[in-house]
């Protein structure tokens, strides 16, 4: 698959299959195209797929709108979660949950049921109630934002998650909460693509497969040991192999 952003080709032929229940780690240098790949999967309109296809549970993702992809069970934890002034977290989540229910042909949740679920899921990621009354991500600290992403994941129960540098900027405790929260939410079917620069996240979320993306292509694929080697030695040896 090839993709461009702002007319510039970023992904230059990526071929990737993720099976149910699998965790794939995606590593690579800055600007290699990791975020582009995740944005393309979720359908950010700023990115254009010029060649290839993306199939999710037999559905052609590229033919679907962003929200339809979300309803299908795709969730992205944003690298930089967006602030939406004036829209409270509660109302935001209610809109998201009920939109998905509607897409699945279910009745919208009653207010009391919804708030009950909110309460349960909040505990999972140890997120404070007071954040729920604030506007989406407004005035949240870096750690709170990342926890809030996992909280939203809990609410929306996706089957495929993209964690785009969810660990960056988190201290050890926050990392543990976020990663353990993710693990608790996982089911046997949940698959994920974890984008990270660091092994420490992968200590918690153990990948089945590790890919290295450089200059818009997956240049190396291996097991968990590949991530360890990159942590210790960087990417130069891979580049040397390619040269």
């Amino acid at each position, binding site marked *: 698959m090839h993709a461009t952003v702002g007319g510039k080709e970023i992904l230059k032929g990526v071929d990737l299959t993720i099976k149910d229940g699998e965790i794939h780690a995606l590593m690579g240098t800055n600007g290699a195209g990791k975020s582009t790949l995740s944005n393309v999967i979720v359908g950010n*309109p700023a990115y254009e797929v010029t060649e290839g296809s993306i199939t999710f549970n037999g559905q052609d993702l590229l033919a679907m*709108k*962003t929200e339809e992809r*979300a309803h299908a069970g795709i969730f992205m934890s944003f690298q930089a979660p*967006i602030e*939406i002034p*004036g829209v409270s977290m509660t*109302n935001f989540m209610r*809109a998201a949950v009920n939109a*998905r229910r509607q897409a699945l042909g279910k009745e919208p949740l009653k207010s009391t049921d919804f708030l009950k679920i909110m309460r349960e899921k909040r505990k999972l990621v140890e997120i404070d109630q007071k954040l729920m009354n604030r506007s989406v991500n407004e005035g949240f600290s870096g750690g709170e934002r990342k926890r809030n992403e996992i909280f939203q994941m809990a609410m929306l129960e996706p089957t495929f998650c993209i964690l785009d540098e969810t660990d960056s900027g988190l201290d050890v405790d926050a990392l543990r909460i976020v990663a353990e929260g993710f693990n608790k939410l996982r089911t046997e079917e949940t698959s994920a693509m974890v984008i990270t620069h660091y092994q420490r996240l992968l200590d918690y979320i153990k990948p089945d497969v590790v890919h290295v993306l450089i200059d818009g292509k997956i240049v190396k694929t291996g097991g968990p040991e590949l991530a360890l080697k990159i942590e210790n030695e960087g990417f130069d040896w891979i580049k040397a192999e390619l040269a």
Partner: protein
Amino acid sequence: MSESNEFVRNVAEKKYEFGFTTDVHTEIIDKGLNEDVIRIISQKKGEPDWLLQFRLDAYRYWLTQQQPTWGHVTLPEIDYQAISYYADPTAKSKDSEKKEIDPELMKTFDKLGIPLEERLALSGTAVDAVMDSVSVKTTFKEKLSEKGIIFCSISEAVKEHPDLVKKYLGSVVPPKDNYFAALNSAVFSDGSFVYIPKNTRCPMELSTYFRINARNTGQFERTLIVCDEGSYVSYLEGCTAPMRDENQLHAAIVEIVIMDNSEVKYSTVQNWYPGDAEGKGGVLNLVTKRGDLRGVNSKLSWTQVETGSAITWKYPSCVLRGDNSQAEFYSVAVTNNHQEADTGTKMIHMGKNTRSTIISKGISAGKSQNSYRGLVRVTKNADGARNYSSCDSLLLGSECGAHTFPYMDIHNNTATIEHEATTSKINEDQLMYCNQRGISTEEAVGLIVNGYAKDVINKLPMEFAVEAQKLLSVSLEGTVG
């Protein structure tokens, strides 16, 4: 962006649920405007001579004036002779001693969500319902009068409380204030009168509901609120009209007098018929609203949510005469299709240590034009005046316009005046974030717009806030208790 356009169209057009007409016997006087017509209006209302003279003076002045052209709106040529200046839907029962309200009228107001039977009323709200030129009913009058509060139609006030009316009518907006004020002063029909006596906190929200029904009539309502020393009142105003192909003229005046240490909150949800998608029909909403903060420590707060009308020309203003007086203006104006709004406020600081705040949010879509126009004036003796203005515009679609025209005239070296404004389109990142969470673009726009307008919506009393949120099409926030 086409989807978001559709959203706003939904707000402004599809959701115009109030476009029906009421089939009720209405006495309408012949079209046209001249001194005889004014005499007839005055006579029908049984007015004293001074009021007839007031009307005639205003009319004679109006004749010498030209319709103003300075707004950023394309006001059509109005044929003032093609309008009927008096329509009375209650005429049928006029003769009987105790006026019975036509059940059709009751039904109409029920349909609009304004029950006129007190037992059905929204909690804590008294209503004066005005259709065309006549007040249909005022609820809770007796209960309010126990506290000495007068809440009735202005026609009734002229009869029952002539001294108060004579003292204050035209004292805030003089008949010669502007073209449309002169017209209103000449032909005004009905509206509400509120008097809050000294040291009284009005125990309920007072509300007037305006409805234009009859064809080819103009509505020229007149509202006068007097809040005496140490008192408080919150007043709400709602407006709807049937869908008609021709423009309907609405030229109102609202006058508010606020004495020492008293406070008035005035909220409007304006949803006059905006015309169809091609810009045909709709209400021409040409309104002069002004509050005179005469007393020390007096407070006035204007909150408006403007979604209707083909053309809106309206600047609810505050004259901060009393020392330490405070004024606020909060506005959300949504325009779509061919709507044009030129709205804002005037803050005239005359007393010492006066403060004013202006928060304006414009949302333009379709082919509409949405302008903020405001004046902040600090006169020579208004030491220590402060004003903060913030005017934001949101653009949905590439064929609309959003404009900001603030005027500041500062004649005092101890004043602190700040104005800021931004104009931008709806944030694509926010839309994308909502989409990723499974929220459709249409709903996401609704959420974002409502968040954007929140500062203003929050200023409205609860029942109105809900209505306003619905108008801004946020299904979720409306259902949260």
